Structure formats: C-alpha cells, structure tokens
C-alpha cells in the first residue's frame, strides 16, 4: 500500500486543482457575484439581493433569448434528429459512394462554429449573398434576411441544422450498424412490412443511441454563441439572442459582473434541470 498512497497523492491533485480553481470555484463565485452590482474593479460592495434576477426576467431581450434557446431545442429534436436519422438509414448500407456521402454530410460539423457563422453570413448577405442572388434570379427582391426581425432566427435555425445533422447522422449510423441483421431477417420471415420493422425493431434497438443524440443536441442547443456572433451578434433588436450571447453582450462587454453572473446562474440551473430530467427518463426506461 506504499504505492497506493504515492499514486493518489501524485496523480489526483493536478486534475483536482485545475478543476477546482477554474471550474468549481468560478461556479460558486457566479452565485456569489450575482447578488451584487459590480463593475469588476476592486471588490463587490453593492449588495442588491435578487435584484439582478428580477431585472433579468423583466428584460425583453433576455426573455427573447430564452424563447430562442427553446426554439433551437425544439427544432433540433423535431427537425434535425429525424433528418439525421433518415439520412443515416439511407447511408448506413455499404454501397458504392456511401462513405463519401457520409464524409460530405459530416464536413459542416468539423468546421469551427465561428467559421460556419461567417460563411452563412455571406450566404445570407442581401447584397452579395447566395440567397439574394437566388431570389433575384427568380424575380423577387433580394431579402435582407439577417436584418429582418422575423426571419433572422429562422435563418439561424437553418444554419444550425446544416451544421449538426451530419454529427447526429454518424451517431445513428453507428447505432444502426450494431443491430443484428438476423433480427431483420426474422422480421421479414414473419411477414413484417418495412414500416413495421422500422417502428418495432429498429427504433427500439436504437433507444440508447437516440438518447445519446438527444443529450448532445439539447446540451449543445443551450450553449450557442460562436455561431450567432458572426451572423447577427444577437440582433436585429435582440431578436436572435441566446442565453450565452445575451450574457456576453449585456454582461461581459458592459462589465456588469453581478448581472452577468446572474445570467450564468440561470444557465446553470437550466443545465441542472435538464440533467435531472434526462436521468429520470433514462432510469425509467431501464
């Protein structure tokens, strides 16, 4: 047991130290700062209790951010995942070109969100972009999509689907390939139709895969920042804010440490709520 003590004392502290210093402590401090009104210089002195939280929920821009994050989650689950699954089904087989298609669909995922955002900023540009050109080619006036309060968020949703469907597709392909083909044979022999096989055999077998995909999708949906900034920076008129872009715009750039920390705490609570709910569903199934 001599080696035991040494390895624990030597191997654990680096991770523990870094994690505590840069993750755990700041999390705690976020809760602490959130009850102050502080601009970052010196120490926080202006205790305001829950004022920051009240201000937050009264702010139109923040409510808009919450709605947008919800919208992203809904679209991810209802549009992106089914799309990814459908394409996975089309591409999971071994046929000539399957791997090439898979790679193509996966490429958007490997790009940095910032780069993807900037590329689509170009696509949507009302003077130089692809959308504008396509519109004028069929006789419409070029739309300024990203400047339109009603359209901008939907435009962003398109980018999100474009960027991540390939990732989920890969997860589904891996899952599909794990299903024993004998199950399909047996089902065929029993006279099941394609649709029945899909619903009764494939999807149930894929449950763990789907759960994983949902996990990544929701967690990712809550965090969007890098993608939004090059596209709209949260505008126009805060119509495309997400929680994190809101935190950056109204907390970081204006050095409102207390207020920004409150946003962080709200984000934290949302993640906790999700983790709870997810665990519930998972243990229920098993």
């Amino acid at each position, binding site marked *: 047991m001599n080696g035991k003590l040494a390895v*624990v004392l030597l191997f654990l502290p680096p991770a523990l130290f870094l994690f505590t210093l840069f993750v755990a402590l700041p999390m705690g401090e976020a809760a602490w700062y959130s009850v102050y009104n502080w601009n970052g210089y010196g120490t926080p002195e202006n205790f305001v209790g829950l004022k920051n939280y009240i201000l937050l929920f009264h702010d139109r821009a923040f409510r808009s951010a919450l709605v947008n994050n919800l919208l992203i989650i809904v679209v991810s689950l209802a549009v992106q995942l089914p799309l990814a699954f459908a394409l996975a089904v089309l591409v999971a087989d*071994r046929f000539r070109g399957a791997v090439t298609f898979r790679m193509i669909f996966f490429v958007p995922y490997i790009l940095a969100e910032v780069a993807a955002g*900037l590329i689509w900023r*170009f696509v949507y540009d009302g003077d130089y972009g*692809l959308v504008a050109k396509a519109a004028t080619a069929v006789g419409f006036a070029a739309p300024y999509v990203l400047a339109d309060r009603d359209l901008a968020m939907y435009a962003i949703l398109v980018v999100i689907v474009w960027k991540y469907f390939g990732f989920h597709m890969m997860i589904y392909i891996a899952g599909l390939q794990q299903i024993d083909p004998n199950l399909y044979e047996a089902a065929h022999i029993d006279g099941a139709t394609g649709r029945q096989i899909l619903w009764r055999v494939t999807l149930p077998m894929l449950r763990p895969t789907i759960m994983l995909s949902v996990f990544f999708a929701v967690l990712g949906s809550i965090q969007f920042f890098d993608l939004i900034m090059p596209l709209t920076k949260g505008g126009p008129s805060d119509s495309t804010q997400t929680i994190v872009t809101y935190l950056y715009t109204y907390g970081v750039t204006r050095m409102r440490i207390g207020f920004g920390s409150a946003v962080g705490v709200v984000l934290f609570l949302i993640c906790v709520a999700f983790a709870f709910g997810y665990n519930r569903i998972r243990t229920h199934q098993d």
Partner: protein
Amino acid sequence: MRYDTPVTIAPFLRIAVLLLFAGLVLIPLVATVLGGFKSLGDLRVNPFGLPESWEWDNYWSILSGPRYWHLLLNSLIISVLTAVLTLAAASMAAFVFAHVRFFGSRLLLQYLLLGLLFPAATAILPLFIKIRDLGLLDTYWGVVLPQVAFGLGMSILLFHNFFRQLPGELFDAALVDGCGYIRFFRYVTLPLSRPIIAVVGVIVFVHSWNSYLLPLVVLNRDSLYPWPLGMMAYQGEYSTDWQLVLAFVTLTILPAVCMFIVAQKYLVAGLTAGAVKG
C-alpha cells in the same frame, strides 16, 4: 457483412435524395472557396458560379503576410498545450479512479464529472476575474488552463471507461510481481492506451482549435490571437470586401478540413466508441 436497412429504398431515389442533400451541404462551402478567387464586382453578380477571372491575389495577399501564419501558430501553441496537459491530468486521475479504492473516491469522481454538464459560459465572468487576478490575462496560459479544466470531465470519463476495460489480470499479475502503481501506469497502461489517447487528444485539440468565447474574453493583444479571433478581426477590418473575407475564411478552415481527411477514420470511431455501449 451487409447491414440490412429496415426499409428498402429504390436505389435511384436514394441517390437522388443523397445528391440533393450533398449539394445543399456543399454549396455554401464551394461558394466560399470560389468567392476568394473573384473580384468584388464579380462576386456581386456571380456568387454561385466559377470566377470570371481567377484572382489569385486575394489568397496570395493573405498567405504572403505574417498575419495569417501568426494566427495559426498561436492556435497551434494553445491547442497543443491544452491537449498535452489535459491528457496528462485526465489519464492520471482516471487511472487512480480505475484502480484505487479509497474513502470518497466515488464522490470525487462524480465531482469531476459534473464538469461535463456545464458549459464554460455559465462561469465566464467569475472566470475572467480569476484569470485577471492571477495575472494571466493576455497570456497563452490564461486560455490553456481553463480549457484544460473544462475538458477534464469528458476526458476523465473516456479514460476511466477505457482503463476499466483493460484486462484485470494484467494488474493483478503486476502487483504480485511487486510492480508499483506508478510504474504500472507508465509501462503497461500508457502503452496500451494509444487508441484512447489519440481519441481524447484529437477531441481536446479540435475543441481548443475551434474555441472562440474564452479567447475572446481573455486575449486582447492581437499578437496572441488564435485564428477565430483573427478571422473576426479581419472581417471587421475588411467588412465591405467580401472577396477578401471569403478567402480568409477558406484559408482558416483549410487546416481543419485537411486534418479531418487525414484523421477521419479515428475521429468517427472515437466519437462512437464507448458511446453506444455507455
């Protein structure tokens, strides 16, 4: 082995749908790459097609200056440091959790894995204050250390899973032979861990390579900018010259695309390894 799909689709229909989606995916990317070869006027009237005349100078002006390479170098330094430190700290911690049972070890592991759930954004402001107070603002370490800390959760999870799947007899045999834990780690575990080291290393590296929020908050000197910050700064400066911006964007995503083509086997395997089994 052929993987039978649940539904049979006419091959013609399948190819048509796949081509459609492949097109939708590729068009923005191709337009971006080609856009860099056009003059501004050409880009305005012809964003989709081939350049009327190939303007090599857009790309050349970026490649021939130090700015672009500097950005890549900064990103490389930050990402390599992050990856190396994360691999070291995570593998060591995971090793302890996999082999040593002591009071509170389960709790400690849960503690570290909590980091998986929370994005860095939740604590970005206190983190900024902390980095500032440590004097790490405007330094590589100000970006590297927090990134390592936030990456520990997932890395430890993956290492832990992997270590537990290594044959237990190896460990027992080593103990009998009088081999200490640390020696075991160095001479047995690590060599066997090449696949997981590659996977975690790549994931951490890519994540750091693409990260934007943390460097944005921590770094102010443009000589330290990693490429995402540099790209946005370039766009801010040349916002009306889309042909230059597109060339710049293309050049910045080029390393990622190249790395992807080279490493795609490992990347895809790694993403799904342990995930479905999980």
